[in-house]
């Protein structure tokens, strides 16, 4: 149970709480506050995965978001998650982690044969190899690549966790709690601004936790703690750890990913796992710090090779040694701090410094402590397959392109530092064009595009003093503009070590006759030679080089590889880096879970469910529902073992023979009021509306300006200046917006108001030859005769004591009425109708029977009014007034709308009178014609005609009216059916429309 690489005292972990976990089945333990990475390293485990392309052994390289290698499959709290960054995921009791991208095991991986076949896997390999023959792609190449290139395995189980979205507004959002971030947040908070401070890691303080500095005589860590506790006590400040601001979007909206509870052993069932914050900030401070970049050398991906700052973080935060015989390989002073930390923990490092012998505060300190420093030296190649065992090191000549001396030294880890790269991703996402800063060999933000201000290391300021000053000033000035308050804050006294200049050196040369792989991008296995090949093959733009080699395209977004890649391209192309330019930074900065993006919008919460007031009755009476937009409508009411076909036939037949009732609440309803309402309707509809009397309904057709039918429905004049419009269920929202558009923008002079009343009214249609008899029982005191309430008539009357509206309108083609009552009375109305209807053979009918009834009558609906038909296409030209103007009228004169052979609605019946014609079938003359077989039209709606007891369809067909009596084929390749059909009139039942008027 001992942890061979755990220090006795150091670190911020809780040594009183042991946490057990497993890695590749092996039981291990760590402490509360460990990451998976720090716990594994403490246990001496470095080999954690295999690389993407060559399956080379890989270990940890960083200590946070920069990690390119250590992506694990992790199981915890009952779910399994792939590609988890081991350097970020906190240890929780019972967690189980396994290596990815290896088979059968991380120690013996068959895919590693790729490593020995690497001459076959150069840049662009996939593009070149899998091009021919084309037919091989789907069956052979793609499955092979998918298998070989797999990272982790996504769970196929339902995600039981809860995810949340939160919308927040603030004056100042600070992204990162290092010295500059803390200073900014503090200054703004003191000015009374509403501040959100976001820190990605569990601990606040950034580099203050690991750097040997003091502020106002406090250690960096203690000062950070003091500031954080003061910020937490202020009501205008929200302080969030484990929260990554990953995206900078338009109009200063930033999106943050909060890991709420993955680190908790127990939580309430209402605690979300993760939370997505949409933050609209007036100003944003980008204090995202910087990431160390490596120096490129041979076999630089061997396990045991770390970034030097990561090695220091493992010692100072987790009390863990990454090795006991370290080589420190650097081109700058910061790695000396890592060396000194090793020394402090009684480990003897050797420093290889690419610079010539010189002196600085840190170099002098290292010398005085007796550390072995070798100037003009670097690592040529690391030896060891699954772990570093030794390194071939060399003394560089003056031009640093060959070696004066080469030797091999034993080591168990190599800590490499190639200087620092500001994290400019958020600035770049905000639209900021970056600029190249020669002094630090990296890009920093240029002129502001939104309200973003980069401070500290993210802006290229690498000293503590500068970062703090930067933070206090910007935090204070930006917030003072918003709050109009300025509180003076004394800039604290800082004690830090002075760094000397770094060496502009980033890649070790190779001795003659040696050719080990030198990796630039670890996660995607992109080496120096891959980039050389891309350039040799003519790729010039950095965006093309990126795509061809996949440099920087892995989930780590090339955090440790981008700049080295640019340096390589600029060297070969003999251009300076700013001429090469940089690739685009895109959100998210770190991978986020799909669950977080989806939030609570899953299952029933995916979209609102609209239920009619009679929904429960339908449910209790075996209704099978169908979605109509957000509405649930009964499709049919199942009796016993009936099928959809049998039930809908029964229901439709009963309407034709007796009477049926249908829930029509979902129809769109719009109240139209005002002295100009008639004039408005006259412009909106194609037919005339000026003379409709009070108490009468009329069928209306509305067009878009391009002449295409938009919607149809009946509108009733309730009183002098009050109309009740109905729309189809599907178009209700569009029609309302359409009306509002014309009233607000085009004809504001019309004094009319429109408002949706869809949900105010419950509606039921009573249809069938016995509907009048039934109605008279429902309204015993009302004269419902054909004379008193004729077709298209309207009456208001009490329905068993409840106010109601009676419309004599029909969609089924039968004698029919529609009753509306206030929604609250909907169920009462429905149950009364069922009760009273018994004597007349009443049965409820669903949308399937409703369709059957309208199709065999030749009434058009959505499938015919499909956004491609004009009134004459669907035999509604009788409704188009020639005397007045209306929306879309001018378009109806267009030539193409008036050619004789234009599509028209027709009816189709199968020659055998048996075969149902699938909707969507194409109509062709000759079923055996050479492809492409000319299409004469399509089948829009199909039903089983209950009146004639055979299939019947509506179709939109070229020159339709002249085709009546002719025979064609309806072909449905989807259903694999070809049916011989005869063209007939679209009005299959009661073509004169006698029944509705009876």
């Amino acid at each position: 149970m001992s942890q061979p690489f755990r220090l006795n005292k150091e670190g911020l972990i809780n040594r009183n709480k042991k946490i057990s976990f497993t890695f590749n089945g092996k039981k291990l333990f760590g402490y509360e506050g460990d990451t998976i990475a720090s716990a594994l390293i403490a246990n001496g485990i470095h080999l954690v995965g295999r690389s993407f392309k060559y399956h080379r052994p890989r270990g940890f390289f960083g200590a946070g978001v920069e990690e390119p290698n250590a992506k694990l499959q992790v199981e915890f709290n009952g779910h399994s998650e792939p590609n988890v960054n081991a350097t970020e995921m906190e240890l929780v009791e019972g967690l189980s982690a396994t290596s990815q991208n290896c088979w059968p095991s991380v120690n013996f991986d068959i895919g590693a044969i790729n490593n020995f076949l690497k001459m076959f896997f150069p840049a662009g390999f996939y593009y070149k190899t899998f091009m021919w023959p084309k037919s091989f792609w789907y069956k052979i190449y793609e499955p092979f690549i998918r298998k070989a290139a797999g990272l982790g395995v996504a769970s196929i189980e339902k995600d039981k966790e809860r995810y949340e979205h939160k919308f927040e507004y603030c004056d100042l959002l600070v992204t990162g709690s290092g010295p500059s971030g803390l200073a900014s947040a503090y200054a703004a908070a003191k000015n009374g601004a509403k501040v959100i401070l976001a820190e990605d890691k569990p601990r606040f303080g950034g580099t203050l936790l690991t750097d040997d500095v003091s502020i106002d005589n406090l250690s960096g860590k203690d000062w950070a703690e003091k500031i954080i506790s003061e910020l937490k006590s202020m009501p205008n400040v929200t302080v969030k750890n484990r929260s990554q601001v990953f995206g900078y979007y338009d109009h200063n909206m930033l999106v943050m990913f909060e890991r709420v509870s993955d680190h908790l052993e127990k939580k309430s069932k209402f605690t979300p796992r993760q939370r997505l914050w949409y933050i609209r900030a007036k100003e944003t401070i980008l204090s995202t710090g910087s990431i160390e970049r490596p120096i490129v050398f041979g076999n630089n991906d061997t396990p045991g090779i770390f970034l030097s700052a990561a090695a220091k973080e493992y010692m100072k935060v987790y009390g863990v040694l990454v090795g006991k015989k370290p080589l420190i390989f650097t081109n700058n002073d910061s790695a000396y701090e890592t060396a000194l930390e090793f020394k402090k923990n009684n480990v003897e490092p050797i420093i290889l410094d690419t610079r010539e012998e010189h002196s600085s505060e840190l170099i002098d300190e290292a010398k005085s402590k007796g550390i072995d420093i070798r100037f003009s030296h670097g690592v040529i190649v690391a030896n060891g397959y699954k772990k570093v065992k030794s390194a071939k090191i060399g003394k560089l000549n003056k031009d640093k392109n060959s070696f004066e001396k080469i030797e091999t030294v034993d080591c168990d880890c190599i800590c490499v530092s190639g200087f620092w790269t500001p994290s400019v991703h958020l600035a770049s996402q905000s639209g900021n064009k970056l600029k190249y800063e020669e002094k630090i060999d990296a890009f920093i933000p240029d002129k502001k595009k939104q309200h973003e201000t980069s401070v500290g290391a993210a802006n290229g300021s690498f000293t503590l003093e500068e970062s703090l000053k930067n933070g206090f000033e910007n935090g204070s000035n930006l917030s003072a503009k918003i709050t109009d308050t300025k509180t003076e804050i004394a800039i604290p006294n800082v004690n830090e070590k002075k760094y000397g200049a770094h060496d502009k050196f980033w890649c070790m040369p190779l001795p003659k006759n040696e050719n080990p792989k030198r990796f630039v991008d670890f996660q995607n296995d992109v080496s120096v030679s891959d980039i050389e090949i891309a350039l040799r093959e003519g790729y010039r733009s950095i965006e093309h080089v990126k795509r061809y080699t996949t440099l920087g395209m892995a989930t780590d977004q090339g955090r440790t590889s981008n700049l080295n890649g640019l340096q390589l391209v600029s060297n070969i192309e003999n251009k300076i880096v700013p001429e090469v330019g940089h690739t685009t930074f895109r959100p998210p900065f770190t991978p986020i879970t799909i669950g977080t993006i989806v939030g609570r919008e899953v299952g029933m919460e995916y979209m609102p469910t609209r239920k009619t007031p009679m929904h429960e009755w339908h449910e209790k009476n075996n209704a099978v529902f169908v979605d109509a937009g957000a509405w649930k409508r009964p499709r049919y009411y199942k009796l016993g073992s009936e099928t959809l076909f049998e039930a809908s036939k029964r229901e439709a037949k009963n309407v034709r023979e007796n009477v049926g009732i249908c829930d029509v609440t979902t129809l769109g309803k719009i109240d139209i009021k005002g002295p100009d309402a008639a004039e408005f309707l006259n412009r909106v509809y194609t037919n005339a509306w000026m003379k409709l009397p009070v108490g009468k309904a009329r069928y209306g057709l509305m067009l878009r300006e391009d002449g295409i039918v938009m919607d149809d429905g009946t509108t009733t004049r309730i009183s002098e200046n009050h109309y009740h419009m109905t729309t189809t269920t599907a178009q209700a929202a569009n029609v309302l917006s359409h009306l509002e558009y014309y009233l607000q923008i085009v004809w504001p002079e019309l004094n009319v108001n429109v408002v949706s009343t869809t949900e105010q009214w419950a509606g039921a249609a009573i249809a069938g030859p016995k509907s009048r008899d039934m109605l008279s029982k429902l309204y015993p005191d009302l004269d419902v005769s054909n004379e008193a309430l004729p077709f298209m008539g309207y009456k208001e009357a009490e329905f068993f004591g409840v106010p109601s509206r009676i419309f004599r309108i029909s969609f089924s083609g039968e004698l029919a009425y529609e009753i509306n009552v206030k929604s609250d009375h909907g169920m009462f109305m429905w149950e009364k109708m069922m009760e009273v209807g018994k004597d007349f053979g009443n049965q409820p009918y669903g949308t399937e029977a409703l369709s059957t009834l309208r199709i065999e009558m030749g009434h058009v609906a959505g499938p015919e009014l499909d956004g491609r038909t004009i009134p004459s296409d669907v035999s509604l030209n009788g409704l188009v007034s020639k005397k007045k103007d209306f929306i879309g009228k001018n378009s109806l004169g267009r030539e193409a709308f008036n050619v004789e052979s234009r599509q028209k609605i027709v009816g189709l019946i199968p020659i055998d009178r048996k075969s149902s014609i699938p909707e969507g079938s194409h109509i062709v003359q000759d079923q055996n014609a050479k492809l492409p077989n000319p299409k004469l039209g399509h089948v829009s709606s199909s039903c089983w005609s209950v009146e004639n007891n055979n299939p019947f369809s509506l179709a939109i067909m070229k020159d339709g009216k002249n085709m009546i009596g002719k025979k064609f084929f309806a072909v449905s390749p989807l259903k694999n059916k070809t049916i011989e059909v005869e063209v007939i009139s679209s009005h299959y039942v009661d073509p004169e429309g006698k029944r509705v008027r009876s």
Partner: protein
Amino acid sequence: MLYIKCPYCGLRAQKEFSYGGDATVKRPNINEEVPSEDWDNFVYMRKSPRGKHIELWQHIAGCRQWIKVQRDTATHEIFQTAKVTEEIR
């Protein structure tokens, strides 16, 4: 997500609005003879400028008013919003 200032309701998130096209297009007057070329231009022809553009949006999940928004189509910067009865210059 854009942040749009509704002249009636104030600053609101884009998801409360729906886009309504070019605000500078004027519908020919009703009940007036329109040359067919003018009508076709009104129905079909739209510019797709890069840069400043005055467009219509409707605050559908708010006050339901149609409004004018002057926006840069490349950068999404919004310079001005107004009621449809007001002018944007």
